[in-house]
């Protein structure tokens, strides 16, 4: 990747000028406005719900509750109870499974009248005792026999206990919410029995399947548009009850229904990173060789779905260690179902693992990086496979140099700048490189422009820009001649956008389709009088012109080829997928986050003086969008480390800080200097471009880097996130 490696974000202009159309912005004649009314208890049943005032309010078209809903046919096919591992079936019955669970849908002719009518709905409940606190619900802990839920053992079970030096510590992370700027939103309508959705989804094909299941219609009849997303961070990986509600409303009224969640509902109804308690046990020789590692996690889920993520997985392979045990349990609580939030379980797990590694390094009186190098994994011991590529050492080196690691002293609190205590910390991140079967259509138009089509979404990482760059690179066209069509059903089927897999999946498909298309062009050229007789191997295609490498005077333009052959364009649709060869390797991205903090121990104030994030993500397709993604992910990790926590008042089972004034995410002023750095070496195995994925590793490892830096500055080990100032001033002795 050369001339296309730094192109501007192709949708940037549309986004910053407001011409990009987000789901709820589609101009839809006859659209009416809906909102959801939530329960005010966390568990129980609706005793009565008074909708009369709302129904009589001006402009109201419908009020739908469990009492009058036309239940989608898919509800009957599922078992009778909620609690069987299926998403919440909205308005199925009178049960209330979490606070703010939708109990009514109000639809009116204007937004304002809809809002007013919704405020008139009052419900009474049969209250039941709710359980929202993970620490107090350990008796409900359950093991789920799946890939993620199964226990893992290598060598001696809990072998760390036999080591010369032992570290045991517990770590907790609170509930965090995705809350992208763009609210969850949908315009739902029906064309006869065919549902049409303009919705915020990270997976067009996944949304089609869910909706088809709920309404009992063929998947191919579900039309989904989700062309632009204002961030999602994982919340768009689920089809949520609000989407089904809008479709129910649209069906009842036979009109398009627009539903946009309130910001408060974004904290209660569309998933979150689950509160998780982790236990770490590390064993090492006095010389610093890890001999045992046990990682246990207990995470919350909802009462009606088993949500699991890869919280303990990283501990199985990231370090060279003979005896490894991991256990993962979930606890059903009376909340909405969690959903993967950027970095997902790996970010949670790395907080425990990478803090424990730092704590062990202190026990051994070793530099934390030295300790990691002593336990560097030359191959993946979990899968017993070689790495496809691994430039983690380069990440360590690059980060150490940029952050000024040489200025770090192992003794906590021993470096000062004026009155500020200085601390340095780091944390390692990793994430698997996945590739799913993806179809792309590549098509030359009569004017020579290239169209690339795929149903994949672009929630912000720059998928369209990546597709443009790869398409331009393969076809030799300038990037401005590439047109992307994506984010809607009916296009060749792309993957769900998640798990850092989009470039590997979609980029490869673009790569392959474009190569096939170029071959087709060259094939036509050999038949053209201008190049007749030139062997195809002597032909090149660039800037829309086929020419002979042997005789540069011999050329023909693509547009001439098309018109000469009376072609209305030239296209290839192709499905690409991973190779058998790739299965022989363990393919992971790696990242290391470095942090320099300045701490005022009297005020507990933590300043992020310098943050450096280094990553081995294979080939970097686009420096700008990759750097943007890395900055953003790192900031997400900073939020996780220093401020994000959904606080619940467990007496009521309700969130307390369900707004952006009280739920803090970092602002510009919080980060004084931030850098990113990519090793940018091609992975020989992963896919044709040699990329490995970035979205998750941009966040994984940041929170422990901060915690470790705070310890280095203050001697205060904070094992429960976020590291707010009260946790610093409590015990710091000045």
């Amino acid at each position: 990747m050369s001339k296309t490696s730094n192109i501007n974000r192709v949708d940037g202009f549309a986004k910053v000028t407001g011409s990009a159309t987000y789901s709820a912005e589609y101009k839809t004649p006859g659209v009416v406005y809906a909102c959801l009314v939530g329960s005010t208890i966390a568990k129980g049943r609706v005793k009565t719900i008074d909708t009369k005032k709302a129904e009589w309010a001006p402009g109201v078209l419908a009020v739908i509750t469990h009492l009058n809903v036309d239940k989608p046919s898919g509800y009957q096919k599922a078992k009778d109870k909620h609690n069987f591992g299926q998403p919440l079936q909205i308005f199925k019955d009178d049960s209330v499974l979490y606070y703010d669970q939708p109990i009514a849908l109000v639809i009116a002719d204007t937004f304002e009248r809809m809002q007013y009518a919704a405020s008139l709905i009052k419900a009474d409940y049969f209250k039941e005792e709710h359980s929202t606190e993970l620490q107090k619900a350990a008796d409900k802990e359950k093991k789920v026999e799946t890939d993620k839920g199964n226990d893992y053992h290598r060598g001696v079970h809990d072998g760390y206990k036999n080591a010369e030096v032992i570290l045991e510590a517990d770590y907790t992370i609170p509930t965090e919410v995705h809350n992208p700027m763009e609210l969850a939103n949908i315009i739902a309508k029906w064309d006869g029995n065919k549902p049409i959705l303009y919705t915020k989804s990270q997976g067009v094909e996944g949304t089609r399947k869910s909706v088809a299941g709920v309404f009992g219609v063929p998947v191919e009849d579900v039309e989904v548009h989700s062309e632009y997303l204002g961030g999602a961070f994982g919340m768009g990986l689920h089809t949520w009850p609000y989407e089904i509600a809008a479709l129910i409303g649209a069906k009842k009224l036979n009109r398009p229904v627009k539903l946009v969640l309130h910001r408060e509902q974004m904290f209660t109804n569309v998933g979150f990173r689950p509160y998780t308690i982790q236990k770490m046990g590390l064993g090492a020789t006095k010389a610093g060789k890890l001999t045992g590692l046990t990682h246990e996690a207990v995470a919350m889920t909802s009462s009606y779905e088993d949500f699991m993520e890869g919280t303990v997985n990283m501990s199985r392979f990231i370090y060279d260690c003979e005896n490894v045990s991991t256990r993962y349990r979930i606890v059903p609580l009376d909340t909405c179902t969690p959903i993967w939030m950027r970095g997902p379980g790996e970010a949670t797990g790395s907080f425990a693992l990478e803090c424990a590694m730092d704590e062990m390094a202190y026990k051994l009186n070793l530099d934390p990086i030295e300790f990691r190098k002593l336990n560097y994994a030359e191959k993946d011991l979990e899968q017993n496979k070689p790495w496809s590529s691994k430039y983690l050492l380069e990440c360590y080196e690059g980060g150490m140099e940029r952050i000024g690691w040489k200025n770090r002293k192992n003794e906590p609190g021993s470096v000062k700048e004026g009155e500020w205590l200085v601390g340095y910390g780091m944390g390692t991140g990793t994430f698997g490189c996945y590739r799913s079967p993806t179809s792309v259509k590549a098509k030359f138009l009569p004017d020579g422009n290239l169209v690339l089509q795929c149903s994949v979404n672009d929630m912000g990482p720059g998928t369209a820009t990546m597709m443009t760059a790869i398409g331009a690179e393969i076809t030799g066209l300038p990037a401005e001649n590439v047109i992307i069509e994506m984010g809607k059903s009916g296009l060749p089927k792309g993957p769900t956008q998640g798990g850092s897999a989009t470039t590997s999946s979609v980029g490869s498909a673009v790569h392959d389709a474009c190569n096939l298309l170029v071959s087709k062009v060259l094939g036509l050229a050999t038949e053209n009088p201008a190049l007749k007789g030139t062997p195809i191997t002597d032909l090149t295609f660039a800037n829309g012109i086929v020419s002979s490498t042997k005789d540069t005077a011999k050329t023909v333009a693509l547009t001439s080829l098309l018109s000469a052959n009376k072609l209305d364009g030239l296209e290839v649709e192709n499905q690409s997928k991973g190779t058998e060869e790739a299965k022989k390797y363990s393919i992971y991205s790696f990242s290391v986050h470095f942090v320099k903090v300045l701490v005022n121990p009297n005020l507990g104030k933590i300043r992020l003086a310098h943050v450096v994030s280094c990553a081995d993500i294979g080939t970097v397709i686009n420096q700008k969008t990759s750097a943007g993604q890395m900055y953003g992910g790192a900031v997400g990790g900073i939020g996780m480390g220093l401020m994000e926590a959904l606080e619940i008042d467990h007496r009521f089972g309700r969130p307390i800080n369900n707004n952006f004034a009280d739920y803090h995410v970092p602002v510009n002023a919080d980060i004084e200097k931030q850098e990113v750095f990519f090793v940018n070496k091609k992975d020989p195995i992963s896919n044709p471009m040699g990329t490995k994925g970035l979205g998750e590793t941009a966040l994984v490892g940041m929170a422990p880097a901060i915690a470790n830096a705070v310890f280095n500055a203050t001697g205060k080990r904070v094992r429960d996130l976020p590291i707010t100032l009260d946790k610093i001033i409590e015990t710091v002795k000045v």
Partner: protein
Amino acid sequence: MKNFQIIKALSSSSAVSNISKEKEAMFIAGGTNLVDLMKKNVVAPDKLVDITGLDLKKIEFLTGKVSIGALAKNSQVAEDASIKEKHPLLALALAAGASQQIRHMATVGGNMLQKTRCSYFYNTDMPCNKRTPKSGCGAIGGSNRMHAIFGASDSCIAVHPSDMCVALAALDATVLVEGPKGKRQIKFTDFHRLPGNTPEKDNTLENKELITSVEIPDNNFTKNVHYLKVRDRTSYAFALVSVAAALDIKNNVINDVRLAMGGVAHKPWRLTEAEEFLKGKTVSEEIFKKAADLSMKGAKAYGGNDFKLTLGPNAITEALTIAASK
């Protein structure tokens, strides 16, 4: 949101008379807090009297005092060259509040009348004596990290969230108001009140009175001043604890001093005992620490805000030290 009427007032007296006629009528200026409260159904006025057209925006330097119109924008005051020169503490406090966008909308009078940020107050399904008298206090025994350590009651432990008001309390400002019964003046430190058994009343404004201006008497606090705001992120967050410190130092001796805290009480918390202690003393970290300890007399925490008992005196010492070093 329920339907409401909005009218534009042409004069202070017409604003007052318009609002006096209606039970559920309220003034609106910048609306940076009121609109949120209406959206959340915390307040539901039938009528709003828009006072933004009134001639109350001027900052005037008069003999012995400055008069700041109630409708002067927070950003206008914070960036006024003469305010920065003569009352830098006020400029610093204003700049520490909210965001630039909000400061462009928010007025001085509105800032004084902003409601607490207590979560229970904002969530109409939760108990809150301030919002719904006799419904109980959710914050006691609940989430109270932001809450009061001074002057709270069993009815309410909410704090007043303003930064500007902490500086105005320190600077001995006076509030000028106009109401159905005419004009009157209120000492700034008497303007906000403690909750007692009537936390629904934030201040001592009488029914339908309109704030017209705030006056600050001239002082010598032009150099050694600091507004320290301790919060959970560097910008756009309410204070956990804030300290307004102003010193008039001559030959390293404290000639005069003003000290007030924010984020610790139902009103800006003036530290008069510490002020008296510091007067006439030679500047040293030791006396600042003693003043800080004196200031914490009677402090009481509620679990989530226990850290304020440590943070409070630390912040006072820090603010005084920074002010003295300027």
